[in-house]
């Protein structure tokens, strides 16, 4: 007899709650645009926030409501952007895929330290403390704010204290660009074409060479060497115009400290930075 009571009691309760829930679902039904779900499924789902919204769902809502465009999600890539745009029957305006590049090669074997820093492991904090522990006040402090900012594990700390961007994993979202308090990371079009001046120091040549063996000393040798006239001085720092550069390599040979490198030589994943650092050391 007991078992029958139990079955009846539980069965009734279950039925009651079921009815209650289905009634509530009817009464309190909220219309959700089905397109939001379809957009959400296509998105990478990393909730990285590079689009400016709190997460992928918020981006999907914003997109369906027309507050942002299909290529607002940078990590999604071209194909996914097209698929997302197709849901609303739109065309994608092409956006060039970009990749993060670190504009400092003054690792701990080449750039001098002024004092031993033993504080909080954060570039912004260390940078504010007496202009940072490095002799160069523009150089990478190597405490990994960019590493922590990357939602795709694409930025890793290399063996010599400089971050290395994994070119396969990098989606070009630009979160590391904003995370670097010294603005050393820039996003560039994804290609191996062109040469780069891998330094961000605007100091005078003398102070640069004292602080770092591979910093740009603003000697203008590259400007004279460049047959394309692609190089300009921007406040004591040589800058190469990637549109004009034709990869002839004259500037690499001309650069006394060895600051200029072809983009193809930039470390493409963790482990390659050792070889790069050795080559850079012998070039200078």
């Amino acid at each position, binding site marked *: 007899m007991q078992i029958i*009571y139990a079955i009846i009691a539980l069965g009734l309760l279950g039925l009651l*709650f079921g009815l209650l829930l289905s009634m509530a679902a009817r009464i*309190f039904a909220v219309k959700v645009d089905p397109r939001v779900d379809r957009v959400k499924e296509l998105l990478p789902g990393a909730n990285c926030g590079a689009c400016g919204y709190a997460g992928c769902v918020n981006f999907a809502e914003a997109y369906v409501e027309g507050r942002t465009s299909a290529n607002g999600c940078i990590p999604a890539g071209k194909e996914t952007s097209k698929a997302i745009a197709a849901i609303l029957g739109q065309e994608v305006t092409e956006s060039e895929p970009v990749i993060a590049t670190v504009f400092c090669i003054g690792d701990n074997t080449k750039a001098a330290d002024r004092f031993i820093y033993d504080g*909080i*492991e954060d570039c912004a904090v260390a940078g504010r403390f007496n202009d940072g522990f490095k002799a160069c006040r523009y150089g990478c402090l190597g405490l990994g704010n960019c590493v922590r900012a990357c939602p795709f594990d694409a930025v890793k700390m290399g063996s010599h204290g400089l971050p290395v961007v994994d070119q396969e994993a990098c989606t070009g979202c630009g979160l590391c660009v904003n995370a670097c308090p010294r603005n050393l990371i820039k996003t560039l079009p994804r290609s191996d074409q062109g040469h780069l001046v891998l330094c961000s120091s605007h100091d005078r040549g003398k102070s640069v060479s004292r602080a770092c063996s591979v910093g740009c000393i603003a000697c203008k040798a590259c400007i004279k060497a460049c047959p394309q006239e692609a190089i300009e001085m921007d406040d004591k720092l040589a800058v190469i115009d990637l549109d004009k550069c034709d990869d002839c390599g004259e500037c690499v040979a001309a650069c006394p400290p060895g600051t200029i490198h072809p983009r193809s030589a930039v470390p493409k994943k963790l482990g390659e930075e050792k070889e790069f650092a050795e080559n850079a050391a012998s070039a200078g």
Partner: protein
Amino acid sequence: MERLLTIIFVYILVENFVLHRFFGICPFLGVSRKMETAIGMSMAVVFVMTMATLVTWLLYSFVLVPYNLEYLQIVTFILVIASLVQLVETTLRKISPTLYQGLGIFLPLITTNCAIMAVALLAVREEFTFVEAVVFGLAASIGFSLALVIMAGIRERLELAEIPDVLQGPAVTLITAGILSLAFLGFGGMFTL
């Protein structure tokens, strides 16, 4: 009144659900990374725990006891809590989208939280009256929130600290939780029911 106050203090400080009884460890470690999420989760827990104790107590006293079905309490409570959370979620979504946005993700997470279940079962076992049971649910959830918010505060500071490699991640979190629990042992015996 005095008994109600005692219940409140006992279950917030002395027999804290997380730090003394070790209920609800998963959300305690899972969502204590940021203060913002910790507060969202806390609010959702306060809400659901109090509601759950209220409903389960009524159901136990007026349905299970009269028909001698006390042994069904666990099954019934699971049923009640799951439906309750679902009901709250659908209702909230319509009535207060803002609150839904705030609590939204945490509500389904709590459905299977052992702390909620424990409150419902303990309220019955301690033979509380109706008012006492509801106050007990409220106090237990506030205790949970207190532990969660303290933990989130500590973890936000730990983010900036230099932690030895071997202790990074879960290890230092568990050690922190242990020390926190020890600290709360200091309240032992301050109030007794």
